[in-house]
C-alpha cells in the first residue's frame, strides 16, 4: 500500500504533463527535422515536394565529407583521452583515498566546476591559448621554445585541451559509481587465491566497472559531437565540426542544408548509443540500482 494505487488512472494522469512536454518539445521537433531535410524547392512551406537532393548535395561536397571525418576523429580522440584519464581519477578517488574527509574535499573539487557554465569555462581557456597566452609565456620562460607556438588558439589542439578539462568528469562519474558498487570481498577472494594486483584489476575490477566506462564514453561522445560552443569560442571562425555546420547553415537561412547535417549528426549519435547499449545491458544496470 502506498500513496498511489498500482495501475490506477491517477498514476497515468500524473505522468501525462511530463510526457506531453517531452513529446511536444523533443520528439515532434526531431521528427520535423527529418521531414524538413527531405524538402525540395526553395520556399519554407509544408507543401514542399520530398526529394533526396539535399543529401546528394551534402555527399557530393568533399569539404563536408572531410569535416564529418575530422569530427569523428576528434570525438574518438577525446573519448580515448577522457576515458583513460577519467578511469585513473575515479580509481584513485574510490580505491586509494582512504580518509573520508579528503575524499569529500576531492569530490567537491571535481564536482563544483560542473555546476558552473560550460560556456564560461570554455572562455576561461582563451587567455591560456593565445600567441601571448599563459602556455606560450610559460614555454618561453622555461626555454622550451624561443618563439611562441601558434598551435593553440584557433586550432584543434586548443579545442581538445579545453574539452578534456570540460568532459573528463563525465567519463569519471559513472566509473566512480560502479567502483563503489564492487564488493571488496570479490577482490579479497581473488587476492587470497594468489592473484597479483594487476590480475585482480584485469579479471575482476575492470569487467565489473565496464558498464560505467561505456556510459561515460556515451556521455562524452554525445557532448563532444554536439559541442559547437567550445569549438566556436576557441576555434574562432577558423575551425568547424559538424555541429557548427548546422549553425552556419541555419544562420545563412539554409534550413534544408542545416536539417540534413542535423539528421546526419543524429544518425551518428544513434549508432554510437546503440553500439554502446549492445556492450552494456542497461536492464541489468537498472536491476543493480
Amino acid at each position: 500500500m502506498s500513496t498511489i494505487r498500482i495501475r490506477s488512472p491517477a498514476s497515468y494522469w500524473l505522468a501525462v504533463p511530463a510526457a506531453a512536454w517531452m513529446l511536444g518539445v523533443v520528439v515532434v521537433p526531431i521528427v520535423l527535422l527529418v521531414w524538413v531535410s527531405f524538402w525540395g524547392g526553395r520556399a519554407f512551406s509544408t507543401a514542399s515536394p520530398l526529394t533526396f537532393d539535399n543529401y546528394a548535395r551534402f555527399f557530393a561536397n568533399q569539404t563536408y565529407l572531410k569535416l564529418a571525418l575530422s569530427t569523428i576523429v576528434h570525438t574518438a580522440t577525446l573519448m580515448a583521452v577522457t576515458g583513460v584519464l577519467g578511469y585513473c581519477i575515479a580509481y584513485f578517488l574510490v580505491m586509494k583515498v582512504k580518509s573520508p574527509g579528503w575524499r569529500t574535499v576531492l569530490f567537491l573539487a571535481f564536482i563544483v566546476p560542473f555546476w558552473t557554465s560550460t560556456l564560461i569555462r570554455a572562455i576561461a581557456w582563451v587567455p591560456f591559448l593565445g600567441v601571448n597566452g599563459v602556455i606560450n609565456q610559460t614555454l618561453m620562460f622555461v626555454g622550451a621554445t624561443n618563439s611562441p607556438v601558434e598551435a593553440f588558439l584557433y586550432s584543434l589542439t586548443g579545442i581538445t585541451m579545453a574539452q578534456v578539462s570540460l568532459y573528463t568528469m563525465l567519463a569519471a562519474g559513472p566509473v566512480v559509481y560502479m567502483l563503489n558498487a564492487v564488493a571488496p570481498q570479490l577482490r579479497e577472494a581473488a587476492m587470497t587465491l594468489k592473484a597479483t594486483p594487476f590480475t585482480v584489476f584485469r579479471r575482476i575490477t575492470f569487467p565489473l566497472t565496464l558498464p560505467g566506462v561505456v556510459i561515460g564514453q556515451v556521455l562524452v561522445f554525445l557532448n563532444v559531437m554536439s559541442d559547437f560552443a567550445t569549438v566556436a569560442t576557441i576555434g574562432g571562425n577558423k575551425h568547424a565540426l559538424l555541429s557548427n555546420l548546422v549553425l552556419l547553415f541555419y544562420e545563412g537561412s539554409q534550413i534544408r542544408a542545416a536539417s540534413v547535417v542535423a539528421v546526419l549528426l543524429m544518425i551518428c549519435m544513434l549508432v554510437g548509443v546503440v553500439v554502446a547499449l549492445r556492450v552494456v545491458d542497461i536492464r541489468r544496470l537498472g536491476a543493480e540500482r
Partner: protein
Amino acid sequence: MIGWPKIGWKGRLSLTSWILGTITLVFLAYQWLPIFTLGLLSFSGPTGGTTFPMNGTSLHWYEELWRATVMNDFKPPLVRSSLLALACSATTVVLSVMAAQAMRGQFSGNGWFFYLMLLGIMAPGILVGFGFAIMMRLMGVELSWDTTTFLVQVSWTLPFGFLTMLAVFNRFDKKVEEAALTLGASRLTTFRRITLPLVLPGVIGAGLFGFSLSYDEYARSMFTTGPDATLPLAVMAQLDRQLTPEIYAVGTTTTFFSLIAVLFFTLAFWAMRRSTSLKKSSSA
C-alpha cells in the same frame, strides 16, 4: 642482463597510488587554473589585455560592466536568465515529483515513459533547439525568452529532476506511508503530510538541477530566444564582437552567482535532511 630493480607487488601498489594520485592532482589543477585565471584577469588594470601581464589591478572592468551602454549591457540578460532559471526550477520540481509518483504507480507504458525522459537528456541541445525553432516557425509563433525558451529549457531540466526523484523514491521507506493510511488518512493527506516532507531533500535537488541547467544553457536558448537575449547568449555575442577583460568580469560574476545558488540549495538540502532525521530520532 640487468633489468629494472625488482620491486614486490606491495611496492608496485604504492607506486600505482603515487602515479594515480599525481594524475588526479594534475588534472585538478588543469581543471581549476583557467577558472582562477579568469577571475584574476577580470581585476586587471584599464590597459590590461586579454592575457598576462595584467597592467595593474583595478575594478575598471566591473565598473565598465555596471556603466554599460545599450550594446553590451549585461544587467537585463542577467535578470532574464535568473527569472527563467527560477521558473524552470519551479516547473521541474512540480512535474518531476508528479512523474516520479506516477512511476511508483507502474502505469502501463511506464517503460516507454522512462525512455522518453532519458531521450531528453540524450538528445543534444543543438538538435532540440533547431527542431523546436522550425516547429515554432511553422506554427507562426513568435520566439521569446519567456515563452519558447522556457518550454525548451524545461525539456532539458525535467529529466534530471525526474531521475533525482526516482532515485529518492527508490530508497523511500514505504512503511511510514502504510502506517498513515492504516490510521485512516486519505492518500492525498498522506502524500502531503508524510511523503512530501520525507522526500523534500530530493525535491530541493531537483530544483537545483532545474535552476543551474537552465541558467547555464546555451545551445537550446540560441535557437529559441527572440531579440531579448539570456545571459549566455549575451556573453557569446560580446565574445563575437570584441574580446576584452569585460568578458572575464561577466564570467566571474555569473560563476559567482551560480556558486551562490548552489550553496543556497545545498544549505537548504542539509537543513531539510537534518530536520527530517531529527524528527525520526525523536519519534523513535
